[in-house]
């Protein structure tokens, strides 16, 4: 695997994660709890979708097909997203916990990428850092308040956290060229990112009155990065591409 392949692998998994979670979160559009929250959640889903488009554009510069083709014509095995983002939206508790776990990881990933030796990626990270920062503020405010809200809300959040935890650890599945990315100062690597993430999210979750699953039981759910997905991804993609695939060569 050469530099470019390693870089593509990194870009694909980031872009696919953002596309799929953006798509999932867009399912709340117009159906969310509380009008103001509906508006805010839609904005963040739009941000994710926009970020993924930018990353696909970087891939395009590296010789891959254009963003629409890449996003709207691949099947599940060709996707590199983590299982966490594929899961159905569930209740608002699960959607918020996923949003919290994913967005803090993304925030730290972007922070690390701001100094990436690969300039185009560093620029994207800098450009969208503010968006992701708002997402973490939103996520943390919610998780804190529902964690402290009442027995019902704390219970739902705890249950969702327990369910999501191993999937979240799966976001940090090591790629085939971690060393190369690290040595070339392109990215700090998944292992280092996970360490930073644990350092940030554990105290925040504890402050939110939630209990982190026992460490001995942690079992990261891998596979997404290599095209092995949950049963939820292909139906999502079939739905997402339903109109586009009427005629992929048409101008929609």
């Amino acid at each position, binding site marked *: 695997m050469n530099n470019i392949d390693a870089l593509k692998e990194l870009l694909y998994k980031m872009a696919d994660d953002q596309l799929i979670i953006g798509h999932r979160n867009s399912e709340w559009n117009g*159906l969310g709890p*509380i009008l*103001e929250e509906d*508006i*805010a959640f839609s*904005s963040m889903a739009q941000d994710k979708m926009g970020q993924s488009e930018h990353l696909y554009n970087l891939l395009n510069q590296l010789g891959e097909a254009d963003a629409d083709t890449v996003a709207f014509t691949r099947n599940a095995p060709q996707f590199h997203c983590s299982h966490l983002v594929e899961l159905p939206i569930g209740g608002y508790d699960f959607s918020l916990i996923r949003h919290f776990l994913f967005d803090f990881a993304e925030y730290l990933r972007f922070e690390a990428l701001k100094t990436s030796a690969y300039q185009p990626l560093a620029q994207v990270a800098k450009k969208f850092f503010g968006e992701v920062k*708002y997402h973490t503020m*939103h996520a943390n405010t919610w998780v804190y*308040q529902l964690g402290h809200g009442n027995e019902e809300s704390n219970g739902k959040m705890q249950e969702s956290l327990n369910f999501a935890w191993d999937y979240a650890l799966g976001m940090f599945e090591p790629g085939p060229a971690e060393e190369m990315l690290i040595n070339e100062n392109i990215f700090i690597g998944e292992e280092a990112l996970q360490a930073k993430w644990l350092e940030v999210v554990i105290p925040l979750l504890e402050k939110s009155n939630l209990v982190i699953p026992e460490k001995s039981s942690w079992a990261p759910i891998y596979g997404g990065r290599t095209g092995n997905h949950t049963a939820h991804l292909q139906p999502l993609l079939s739905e997402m591409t339903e109109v586009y695939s009427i005629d992929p060569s048409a101008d929609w």
Partner: protein
Amino acid sequence: MALEDKKRIESLDPRISRAHLSGGNHEDMTGLLHFQTYEVFHQNKRGAQHKHVGIVHAPNSDMALLYAKEQYARREQTANIWVAPSSCISATEYADDDIFTTTPEKLYRNPATYKVMDRIQAFKERGMTPSDEV
């Protein structure tokens, strides 16, 4: 059973079909919670004044700020936002707006009404003689 089937919603929206809804329920929604409202003030750039732009419903100021950002600053250039509970705003009454009626007439407060150049000009034209000696 037949009635149940009739009420089952068949939606074209895949998000709705997944929710397996039934229609025909006209009962009151009891216990809809009513958050307090916050008045939102938006500053478009540093140095500019904050302007009132509307309200959000929120249980506390942290949430109100999160919501104000998306409802009132998702298109506009923005430097800063304030929120304040509507219950903390005091206002004059429109019925008493006659307390403001003479305000625009108080010309002595208006710099533009001080026009000394005419007077200086006249003074110069008459050879700068005191007025009672002309």
